[in-house]
């Protein structure tokens, strides 16, 4: 009798189990709840996994995903990866001011590397207006850096100094220039907008703080993101800023050989081929660089900016004859992600990959580069 009872219970239990899920345990466990809840609808969907999985309680899922993890700085292997972390750290509206890259021009240029050229005496250093720089890299001017990190420009300058790299400070910095200069161990340049009425006053303060070069931005208005003022209108302003100034002047925002000539006529000792980070639409600075270098490269220093993200990108600009490259967004990604240490990491990563690719292309220094080392490919019609 008793045996029979046990088998009866077992039989009923198996029946229930068959209904509810895999085996008897299913009666007590998530199997049954799956039948009651999403299990039924889950024939094709997540119900099934709820039965088989080791039980993600439904309550947990409903609470939403956990906050994303900020990877240790050590895990990032190239400058582009800092953008993801910056995005993680910043409000969307702030991140949008430093988001993205335009890589198309870089992807149309391949190298022609030469073998069996010894490069053990690798030397990337470059002389800019009498100052020796470790590598042909400068931190470009970016306004209001406190929006990216609590320490703002102070962290940028500390990180850049640790990476032995000069910084161009924007006149619209969120920290006074004197405080920034107090933290700097590498040359500081100062950047003003030609369209800014108080530019000359700002320049005087920067000179007092020890800035070595004045960079005047033309062709872009004070409202970042808009290109309203025309370049020719800015030349008069440049002339006003230049009056009685001893420091070298660099004009930033030149995109044509004509403007490069005009910059020389204004007494500039250098230009930055730039479309203000893509704010001004049209061709990429890298695409117009060669023609500008051909015209004015022998007379003045030609710098360039615009979506430089990899060591190979910088090498391409140097092959075309640029003396140095300005990095803005990648440095801000580093700043937003990890403060001064992030700035240092981004710059050092680029120095290292640049150095490595000098070895790969067979050039021990900037002087050994020549245009036969690249091939520019036409845009491929699809």
């Amino acid at each position, binding site marked *: 009798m008793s045996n029979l009872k046990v088998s009866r219970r077992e039989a009923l239990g198996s029946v229930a189990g068959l209904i509810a899920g895999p085996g008897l345990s299913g009666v007590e466990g998530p199997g049954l709840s799956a*039948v009651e809840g999403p299990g039924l609808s889950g024939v094709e969907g997540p119900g099934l996994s709820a039965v088989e999985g080791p039980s993600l309680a439904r309550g947990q899922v409903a609470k939403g995903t956990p906050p994303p993890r900020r990877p240790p700085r050590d895990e990032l292997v190239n400058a582009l990866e800092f953008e993801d972390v910056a995005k993680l750290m910043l409000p969307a509206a702030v991140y949008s001011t430093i988001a993205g890259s335009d890589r198309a021009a870089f992807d149309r240029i*391949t190298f022609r590397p030469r073998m069996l050229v010894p490069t053990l005496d690798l030397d990337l250093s470059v002389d800019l207006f009498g100052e020796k720089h470790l590598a042909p890299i400068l931190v470009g001017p970016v306004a209001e850096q406190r929006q990216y990190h609590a320490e703002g420009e102070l962290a940028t300058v500390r990180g850049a100094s640790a990476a032995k790299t000069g910084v161009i400070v924007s006149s619209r910095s969120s920290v006074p220039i004197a405080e920034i200069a107090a933290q700097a161990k590498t040359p500081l340049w100062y950047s003003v907008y030609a369209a800014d009425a108080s530019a000359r006053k700002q320049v005087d303060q920067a000179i007092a703080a020890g800035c070595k070069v004045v960079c005047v931005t033309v062709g872009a208005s004070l409202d970042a993101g808009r290109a309203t003022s025309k370049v020719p209108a800015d030349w008069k302003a440049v002339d006003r800023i230049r009056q009685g100034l001893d420091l070298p002047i660099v004009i930033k925002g030149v995109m044509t050989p004509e403007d490069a000539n005009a910059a020389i006529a204004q007494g500039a000792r250098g230009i930055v081929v730039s479309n203000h980070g893509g704010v001004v639409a049209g061709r990429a600075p890298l695409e117009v660089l060669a023609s500008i270098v051909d015209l004015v490269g022998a007379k003045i220093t030609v710098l360039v900016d615009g979506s430089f993200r990899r060591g190979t990108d910088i090498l391409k600009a140097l092959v075309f004859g640029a003396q140095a490259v300005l990095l803005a967004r990648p440095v801000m990604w580093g700043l937003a992600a990890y403060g001064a240490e992030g700035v240092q990491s981004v710059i050092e990563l680029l120095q*290292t990959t640049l150095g490595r690719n000098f070895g790969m292309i067979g050039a021990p220094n900037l002087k050994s580069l020549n245009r036969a080392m690249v091939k520019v490919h036409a845009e491929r019609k699809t």
Partner: protein
Amino acid sequence: MGTIDNRWRHGPTRRQALLALAGMLAGSPLLRAQRDPHPITGHKRVPGLDEMMTAFDFEPICFANVVLARYEYMARASESEFTLRRNREAFEWVDLVERPGAATAALQTSTEVLGIKMDFPIMIAPTAAQRDLHPDAESAMYQGASAAKTPMIVVGRSTIPIEKIAQAATGPRWSQFYPVQDLKISRETIETFQAAGARALVVTVDQQTDTGYERDLHNRNLGGTPRGASGGRGGGAPEQGRGGRGGGSAAPAPMQGPALYRVIPARLWYTWKYLDDIRAFTKIPILLKGILTAEDAKLCVERGFDGVIVSNHGGRSMDYGPSTLEVLPEIVDAVGGKIPVLIDGGFRRGSDIVKAMALGASAVCLGRAPRWGLGAFGPQGVQRLLEILQAEFLEAMARTGRTTLAALDRRAVRVNFT
């Protein structure tokens, strides 16, 4: 309870009724809802060698057979891997010009390169760490290659001694060699290769420094290359044992040359003079592997070398370097037929090989593809993969209407390089 009730409660009839109920419930949609309609255990299996139809089919099997980090070791390339991708893309920029008039049976595909006769213009390129793929490593590769009558270039730093590999099979064999600054060691190594029966020496001249394998750096916590071994990390030159990037004053960095930029000096010492020096160490032909420009190819000819291999190390040398196929014509023109021009880089189909032959290559070397064969099915996998490519080569060549390799000229392809 009466007798009839008791009989019902304990009798077989009731049991039958319960069974029927159970049967009904067992067939209910509720139960089906709990069952995986396609349980993975029901259809999980490894495809067999006889199911391999293209070279690509071997890769997932090889992937499944080896540890992830060792698979990545061969799959990866430099930095952004632009050149790795471009190697494959370039085949899409070259079309075969079809012409009737050649049956596959009538095709003459045999050729001779530096004294080695081969049925097809196909060779095995030298690749490192073949023991990751098969316990018999280079010996297994050699057996598979010889079975498919394909000459093999044995990697210099093989995981099995060259003398032992030499006994594994009988097919023609070259040896690869990485320059070593010490000329005495260079001479000894080259003499060892020659004594073991190498019929030519392939000197790798590219990949001058560490190549910044970003995949490795990402995988370094998954049993990949230990931190620093692949270098390329901003900050802290690995040999200095610095823990992290950008530690500032953590170690006194030597203030000159590559170390100033945390670049590993590795092979930055390479010179043409060294190549001239080792040229005298052996009488067998010497080919330089890693040539990507007409200028360097001309230097090879001028300095008396016997062949060039157009190679970007499978995308593992300079990132944003060219694909090998797009620079092949300029190198073939520069050499002007004086020495053979071989090529490697992304060859996966018979038609890829036909395209390179039409653009003037003397033969094509395969790196990753036979590794997939070896990792997937051992020597038989290598043999089968090569036979698939040979059959594809015949089909593609027949489509061009050419019956001999000599007739396979540039008019057999339409080139759309930019």
